[in-house]
Each structure stands twice: as C-alpha cells, then as structure tokens.
C-alpha cells in the first residue's frame, strides 16, 4: 500500500472536508468529531461529488412515531439523490450488499514520526506544531 501525506490536520476544519488528487483519483477526506475518514469522491449511483454531501446523523426508528439520532455527522448524504453512506467504511445504508463507496485507511501521525529515518545528519532543533493526515491507497 502506498502512503500519501496529504495535509496537515489543521487544513481540514472539524465538520469540513478536502479533496486530494491521489494516483489519478479524487479522494475526499472528512474531519468529523476528531476523526478523519477518506473516501472516493464519487457517488457509486450517478457520480455526484461526495465532497458536497451533507454530513448527517444516523436516524433510526424502532417503530413509527419513535425516532432516534446517533453517530452525528458520520453519515454522508449524497448531494444529488440523497443516498446515505457510512463514512467509516463507505457502506450504503439502503443496499449494503451491492452498493458501496470505496474507502481508504487514514492515519494521523505527527511530523516528528514522519521525518524519522535511518540517516543522521547535522541536526537543528525542530519545533513540531502540527500533525499530518496520511491516506493509504
């Protein structure tokens, strides 16, 4: 798996997203409740850009008249036809067997870890102020 360092964590504001071109694909990274999720920026239904999706809650109902919200912000609602997908794994809620958005593992690592290597050269004091978002494809 190739690892791509795509952004500083601070580049993607909480509740927001950003699209990155990785190996000829547009991958969208969402920042929700302190976590990052990466998916192909394309709805499997008719190709709408998921970067424009609404980040909504999972709404369930055990019976008519009773409604429950959970996992606030973790469900994607496609900007065109409203199909819902789970940001964690790209699973569709209405037809999980057949329809899925490609999702990618995401890691967040500090700048200090990323620059560590086998070679030693003259060193300068480095002040690490930020962490980086890495997508594996």
């Amino acid at each position, binding site marked *: 798996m190739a690892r791509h360092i795509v952004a500083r964590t601070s580049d993607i504001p909480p509740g927001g997203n950003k699209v990155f071109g990785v190996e000829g694909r547009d991958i969208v990274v969402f920042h929700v409740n302190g976590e990052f999720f990466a998916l192909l920026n*394309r709805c499997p239904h008719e190709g709408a850009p998921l970067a424009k999706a609404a980040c909504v809650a999972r709404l369930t109902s055990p019976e008519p008249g009773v409604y429950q919200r959970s996992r606030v912000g973790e469900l994607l609602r496609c900007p065109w036809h409203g199909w819902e997908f789970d940001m964690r794994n790209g699973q569709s809620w209405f037809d999980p067997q057949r329809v*899925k958005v490609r999702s990618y593992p995401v890691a967040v690592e500090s700048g200090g870890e990323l620059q560590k290597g086998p070679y030693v050269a003259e060193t300068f004091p480095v002040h690490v102020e930020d962490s980086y978002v890495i997508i594996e494809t």
Partner: protein
Amino acid sequence: MSDVIDRPILGEQVAAQSRLRIIDCDVHPSIHAHADIEQFMPKGWQEHLRTYGSHLRTPYIGTTPYPRSSPLIARRDAWPPTGGPPGSDLDFMRKQHLDPLDIEYGILQVLDLFIFSQQNLEFGAAIQRAINDWQLAFWSDREPRLKASILAGQDDTEFAIAEIERCAKIGRYVQINVCPRANEPLGRRRYWPIYARAQELGLPLGIHVGGYGGHAPTGSGWPSYYVEEHQSNAHTMAAQLKSLVLEGVPERFPNLKIVFIEGGFGWIPSATWRMDRHFEAFRSEVPHLKRRPSEYVKEHFWFTTQPIDEPDEAKHLRSLIEWVGVDRLLFSSDYPHWDFDDPRYAFKTPLTETERRKIFNGNARALYKL
C-alpha cells in the same frame, strides 16, 4: 464490488460518451433577483407581488414546495459561487452542466413564482407573461443552446390564447406549457381552444409535473411525507394521460403532440394496458374513440425520462423502455434539482447505438424541430 464504484472518470470515457450530443428536455432556470422579473411586469403587478406575494391554492399555511429533500429542491453542488439560487447563473450552468455534458440544446422549464398555481388568475397571467419575456432576455438571447417554452395557464383560457399568440409572433419558443394540475382534468373541453391553437402552430404541448390546482395531489388526499408526495407526480401524470386520451383530445386534434415532463415513464405500460382492456368492455361509453387508447398514446405522446426508474435488475428497465417505446422517450436531466439524472450513468441498462441516438437526441430534435 461492482467496478463502477472505484473506477475514476477517465478522460477517454467522457470523450466516448459525449460524441453523441445531448438534448436535455428539462432544464430549470431560476430568477436571480425579483428585480430581474419586475422589469417585464406593469408597475401595478410589481406592487401586487411585493404587497401580496403568491396566493396559492394549497390548504395549509406554509405548504409551498420548498424545501423538499434539500433547499430549493436543488443539488447541493448546484449553488452558484456568485450567489443566488441554483439555476440562476448562466455562466455557472454552462460550466457545471451544458459544457461538461455536451448539451446541444436544453429546453427551459420555469417553476419560479408558482406560475401555474396562482389563485388570482390576472396576477398569474402577469407573471406568466413576464417569465415568458424573461426566458428570452436572460437565457435564450444569451445562450442559443437554451430554448424557451410559452407558459400559458389554461384556467384562464382567453389569456392563455392571447399569450400563445403574442409569443408565437416572436417565433422563438419551441413548446406551449400548460398546468399539470389545473381546475379540471386536462381532457376537458374548456381547454380545447388551447389545444386547437397548439396544433395550428405546430408547437408541442408540454406538461411538467408540479403545481397546485387546489386538489390534493393524490386521489386519497394530502400525503404526510415528501417521499409519499413525490410518488404522486406519477399518479397525476397517469390521470392526465387517461383524461386526455379518453376525452378524445388526440382524436379531435390528430396533429397535436403532447410531452409529459418529469413524470418518469414506469407507470405508462400499466396505464395503457388498463385503458385498452377497459376500452374493450366500455367502448360504448366513449364512442368518440376510434382506436384503442394505447394507439393514441403511441402516436401523440412523448415522455421525458427523469426521474428514471431503477429496478433492481437492469433487464426490467430494458423491458420498460421497450414497452413504452424507444421513439417515445426524451432524455431529461432536471438540472439543477436534487433528483437530477446524469446522462452518462442514469440508464443502468445497455442501449444500442440507435436507441441512444433516439433517446438522447433524435426524438427531441424531430419533435421540437431543432
């Protein structure tokens, strides 16, 4: 997993798809600001609009169409960066829709100001007239790909005829649009003068879903949910198809062409099968019909494709297209609304090259004389 899912949109794929230029029979332009439309209205009606606004035939306060599913029923990616509602910025429409999808022509369908639903018929007539002028000035004059329709609410038949005459003299409109939810079913004789004029002018009669004629959108009253109401578009269209055919409109106006817009087409086979079956039993009740109802449907009616039906198995969509008839279908996207159909991906069944040419271009080119 299907390979469709993680395949990126490749350059050559887009090029291959777009060799066939597309005629999109349902594009919604919006008014950017009220001032744009006011310049086409007499001062008195401008003041009326500001003072009283829309006086609709809906039964409850706040039962206007928006938002439904999403604000202004629009795609979330269709809000122009320059501000204003989706569909109100020509440059953005070119960039997002007309250019990338290689649209040869787009037929404009205006829904703003609830044109056909006004209870005050004189005010309704004033906004229809204003919007007919605005379609040319703001859209067709600036973008030759976009073609306007004459909006003429048929509940004021006299006005409708006058407006049709006025616009027909200008000669740049490709269709006459009437209300899908009028005071009475569309086949009724009170509306026939409009159909007579449309036939004489050789302009197709367009019927786009939506609007409030004062009746509940379903035969059993007002639905509770939008998902329920959205289905009623198909019921309304089926009722109007039956009214037009069984009252004898195509029999009386043999050269009239009628286009059902945004009603989809999944309901047509069952509607025509039933009409034919009952026609055998009840033909003495409707002796003015000389042929089976399905024959009138096959010769006089066209149907735009969106919202396309999506059965679980592609072969069922394929059968549906064959039942309705490849010659009867006109591609439409409904841009920029939320249930937009992308011409590259909406048909989830293979079509032959001949079928594609007809549905995406040829049928509309012949019908609208483009």
